């Protein structure tokens, strides 16, 4: 990154980010106080999605779980996570049936609204792509990703959203070595 665009971003404390115990509790059963991972200082120690693949297929997936999947992605220009920078936040994640009119359809749409730290951040597309790639690699294929810039938080939000929503462009980006290096770097802190 040639030039840091936002040299003084607001930073949240990792310990203050919403979390819950990953015990055998049923999903939706939130526990913000006794989460054992909230006290762990090193983000790299967080559970990776890999060890949970089986659980992901079995248990219903909720917003907290989506947040946990993406909050540790690194910002491409700061040594901080998207969660710490409040680029992603729990209230801006929603899961809805993709086809509400089709009974028993397993398809669900995960919507993640991204709030760039500054309204002209040129890295918004890369951040969005990182979030989308992270979710596509972690969630079962019955999920449809809808990753977009939160309305009014970016000067070219519509343009970025169109790119992020373009399946063909995203697929091609995944085969672009240079771009995937950047994405892989952002993901390092997830594992």
């Amino acid at each position: 990154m040639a030039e840091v665009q936002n040299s003084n971003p607001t930073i949240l404390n990792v310990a203050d980010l919403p979390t819950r115990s990953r015990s055998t509790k049923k999903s939706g059963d939130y526990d913000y106080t006794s989460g054992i991972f909230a006290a762990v200082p090193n983000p790299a120690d967080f559970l990776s999605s890999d060890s949970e693949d089986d659980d992901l297929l079995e248990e219903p997936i909720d917003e907290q779980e989506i947040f946990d999947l993406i909050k540790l992605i690194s910002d491409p220009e700061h040594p901080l996570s998207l969660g710490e920078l409040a680029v992603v936040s729990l209230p801006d994640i929603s899961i809805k049936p993709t086809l509400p009119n089709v009974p028993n359809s397993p398809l669900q749409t995960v919507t993640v609204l991204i709030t760039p730290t500054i309204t002209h951040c040129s890295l918004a597309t890369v951040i969005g792509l990182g979030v989308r790639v992270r979710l596509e690699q972690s969630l079962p294929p019955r999920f449809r990703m809808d990753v977009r810039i939160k309305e009014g938080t970016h000067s070219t939000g519509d343009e970025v959203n169109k790119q992020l929503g373009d399946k063909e462009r995203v697929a091609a980006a995944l085969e672009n070595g240079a771009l995937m290096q950047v994405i892989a770097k952002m993901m390092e802190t997830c594992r």
Partner: protein
Amino acid sequence: MAQTNSHLTLLSDLTPPSLERTWLTSPHPTLPIVATCSSDKTVRIYSLTNFKLLSTITGGHKRSVRTAAWKPHISGESVLATGSFDATVGIWRRWDNYGATNTTEENHTNLTEGADDADTEDEEWRFAVLLDGHDSEVKSVSWSPSGMLLATCARDKSIWIWEDLDDGDNNFETVAVMQEHGGDVKCVSWHPVEECLASAGYDDTIRLWREDLDDWGQVACIKGHAGTVWFLDWEGVDTTPASAAGAVSADLQRQWCEQVSLSGPRLVSCSDDRTARIWRRVPKESVSGTALSSAATGIPSIIRPTGTDENWEEDACLPHAHELAIYSVAWSRRTGLIASVGADGRIVLYEERFVEGGPSTDAGADAGADAGADAMDTTDDAAPVQSSSLRTEWSIVAVVDGAHGIYEINHAAWAKRADRGSESTSTSTSPNEEEVLVTTADDGSVKVWSFQR
């Protein structure tokens, strides 16, 4: 809405499937085979007779193969053009009688060096030439009706037209490069009989191109979609809408057909905006002021005389049936049915029917109308003042939810049915051959469907 007695039945999967995303399946113009493009950088050739893999074309592309098209009007040999995310277009050849008779050395002399490593397993497919020119991912390729021209398009916003010199040396010449699109060009598709190219893409527009005095130029720009236009397909030249037997008078039908023949084949498009729309060229005779047509296309006519501009208008918007982006539409040149598929995993079939009288939405009414010429006199009170009030209406005749399970469907195409069950299940009274619908999905699966009434 959907007729309960019409349904789409799964005949078979094409096996074995690709293990990665498949983008498109192109049926051969004459042989019962299809070519499926995969993200695993290969093209798979399957039989529509037994639904089995015949051969795999490998080694030509360094990234996903996105698109493929068979060259029409050649005999004795099959020629396939492939487009890849590696920005190149490959041309592949195979003798149709391969294995039946001994292929000679004829035409083998110009194999591109270095391509031979691909031929170890499937030596019958010969890598002929790589067309280099695009700067980024190639999204679509299409052969002109004569097979002489190949159109290709890419994320670099350009459309290239190549001429197949057919000189035995696999030489292609660049005829034109058009760069008017404001974003990725997602699809190119040639008119079924004329040298007129349609294109569509990321800038939400559909554009039409013709050659005028040795120069290819845009003749129309259609702005009717509110999102990326993913795919285009043309109507056949001879299809007529279905009508309940005798419900519409022969005279009116003839009038309708005359009107349609003035416009020529229509174009169907599908988009991220979840709609599929049909476009019709306004016949020149009915556009008296040429300035008017120029204004309608929104293209300043500085370079080109307004005489070449065409005015295209929306003929119909197909009934809303998809909840997510529609990635592909296929207009059957045999039956006139349109199929659409998309990210919601749904296949929808639409049929065009004659509707007599006013803007009634009750499509079922025609079923009860009297047979023969009497129908002309039984138009109801709501009939508009216009004497020839015949129009058509598109209705949904079949919907399959979750056609490829939870996966998105990227492409649909009609093909001639070739498996053994074709005779027994055919109940069609039309002289048309029975067709199958071939759908291609994200999990690598390709399915073959038959439509029954």
